[in-house]
């Protein structure tokens, strides 16, 4: 029997009370860490998407109708294909204010060996590309050859592995960094491979590709505007002078996403703050009622010779243990819930969702932990203070 074990015994042998308190602290830590991680992930996803698109302007055919088609490919992961004549590429390339220009060709696949759903195959030209190559991870080849592909982060195949498209084995020669968008489920390859895959699709009776050839047509033209030139002027120039195509400033294309994200972030922030205040109030009320319920127990300890300081230590230790266990459980649950389901969250919200780096998460976890434990400790201090103000003898009289 050791006096310092009393707080542990109080927790273990009063399981209902302890469980209720731990659950409450757990909710508090979940709301804090979860809210923070979700908000940060959404912001990081948008930043990543902006950076990753790399282009200031995207030109798509009118048949793409609106920016929604592009958004749906990037965010919702719906594979699509729309095409325009390659002459637009040559015409736009000669315009003023264009620093870099590269075309991409979108090809949708049927189910591939790697994936449970159709994925987007994007053809690009490594010679002119400035949006894919910068994101190839270390050790990856930056120029995919024939039947070689660069795989998005979430494609379930490592470098050296193969994926079957239209009955052709394609070798993964590089992987891209994570974006938090459905670009992570796309694969990139050179035009030769695209042509070979189109031929293969014809052999396999996928008739919708029959007339398409990346030598003659492209899906999108990506433009990096020269410094000193106004992006909107370049967009207007293209839209005025080029028929049947539409130029969109990337920032404008993402404005809808950004607005949604802003809305969700605000709602999340308000929810998190409301939940915080609510749970803190409940916690204080719960602790206060606990003081009342345990007044006699504490008075009995005082009768035996437990000083106010020793009493404060007992209450403090109990609170620390409950706070630590509750906070840890809440944080582990939060990480378990957010990380494996980040893709699902991105799909369901239609927003880019890129979870923070391990270091960033560690900082968030540390801050959450400190705040929760401090909250528990302050409540304990309040409890100990109110206890020490009353004579033990008076408390004992109350119960009789």
């Amino acid at each position, binding site marked *: 029997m*050791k006096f310092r074990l009393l707080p542990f015994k109080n927790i273990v042998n*009063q399981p209902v009370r302890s469980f209720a308190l731990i659950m409450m602290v757990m909710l508090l830590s979940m709301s804090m860490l979860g809210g923070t991680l979700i908000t940060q992930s959404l912001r990081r996803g948008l930043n990543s998407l902006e950076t990753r698109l790399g282009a200031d302007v995207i030109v798509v055919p009118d048949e793409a109708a609106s920016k929604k088609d592009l958004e749906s490919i990037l965010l919702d992961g719906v594979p699509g294909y729309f095409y325009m004549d390659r002459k637009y590429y040559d015409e736009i390339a000669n315009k003023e204010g264009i620093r870099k220009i590269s075309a991409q060709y979108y090809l949708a696949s049927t189910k591939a060996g790697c994936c449970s759903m159709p994925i987007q195959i994007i053809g690009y030209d490594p010679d002119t590309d400035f949006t894919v190559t910068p994101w190839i991870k270390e050790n990856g080849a930056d120029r995919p050859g024939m039947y070689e592909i660069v795989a998005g982060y979430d494609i379930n195949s490592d470098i050296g592995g193969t994926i079957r498209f239209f009955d052709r084995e394609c070798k993964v020669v590089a992987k891209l960094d994570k974006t938090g968008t459905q670009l992570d489920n796309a694969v990139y390859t050179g035009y030769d491979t695209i042509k070979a895959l189109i031929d293969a699709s014809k052999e396999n009776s996928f008739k919708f590709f029959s007339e398409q050839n990346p030598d003659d047509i492209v899906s999108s033209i990506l433009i990096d505007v020269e410094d000193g030139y106004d992006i909107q002027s370049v967009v207007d120039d293209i839209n005025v002078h080029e028929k049947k195509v539409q130029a969109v400033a990337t920032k404008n294309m993402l404005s809808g996403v950004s607005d949604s994200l802003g809305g969700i972030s605000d709602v999340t922030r308000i929810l998190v703050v409301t939940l915080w205040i609510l749970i803190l109030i409940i916690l204080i009320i719960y602790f206060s009622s606990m003081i009342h319920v345990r007044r006699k127990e504490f008075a009995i300890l005082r*009768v035996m*010779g437990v*000083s*106010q300081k020793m009493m404060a230590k007992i209450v403090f230790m109990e609170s620390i243990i409950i706070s630590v266990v509750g906070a840890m459980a809440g944080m582990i649950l939060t990480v378990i819930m957010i990380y494996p389901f980040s893709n699902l969250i991105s799909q369901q919200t239609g927003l880019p969702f890129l979870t923070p780096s391990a270091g960033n998460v560690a900082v968030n976890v540390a801050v959450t932990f400190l705040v929760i434990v401090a909250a528990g400790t302050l409540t304990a201090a309040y409890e100990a203070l109110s206890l020490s103000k009353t004579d033990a*003898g008076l408390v*004992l*009289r109350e119960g009789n």
Partner: protein
Amino acid sequence: MMRAENISKKYPRQTKNANYFFAVNPMSIEIHKGSVTEIIGRSGSGKTTLIHMLAGLITPSEGKVYFGDKDLYSLSDSELSKFRNQYFGVIPQGHTGLFSLTVYENVLLPSVLYKNMESKDEEYAMELLQMLEIDSLAGEYPKSLSGGEIRRMAIARALINRPEVIFADEPTGDLDDYNTEKVLKLFRKLADEGMSVVMVTHESEAKKYCDNIYRMDSGNIKPA
């Protein structure tokens, strides 16, 4: 050995002529070594308040309580708590089991507040449990005990540190005749060995074990 000089306790409450009332009017009392002192009186007469003031559990509104030459209420809370642990054993009224601890741990707890547990404490705890015939309940938790068993556990707990004074507030309240007599005899035996016992009781049988009997009435005390 122990004396209270002009102690009183008043509580804030609106009365006819004042904003407070006296639970214990100014009074003095002396407790002799090796004596059993009984305090009787009607409910609300101030008996419990008096023994709590003597035991250092309720600060008197006025007056002083001495143990030898030591003024109890001049001590800091830490000093008074340690002093109470070493020299006093208090048996409060009602059910006073700590529900997170077993009967055995409840009894041992006062012995480990200011030092590590020693084997003689463990032996004495078992001896007390046997003496009060609850040794078979040593591993049980208070919630599974009857009122009488909890009361005997509280008596054992008050005795574990071999105190110099026992303050007992209706120690036989939940006990049957057999156990009442057993506890009163135990108090007498301990007093004969040098311990002082101050008890509040309504037990008519108690007087034959006592050296001094006081009656309290409306906060005033006088020999019965």
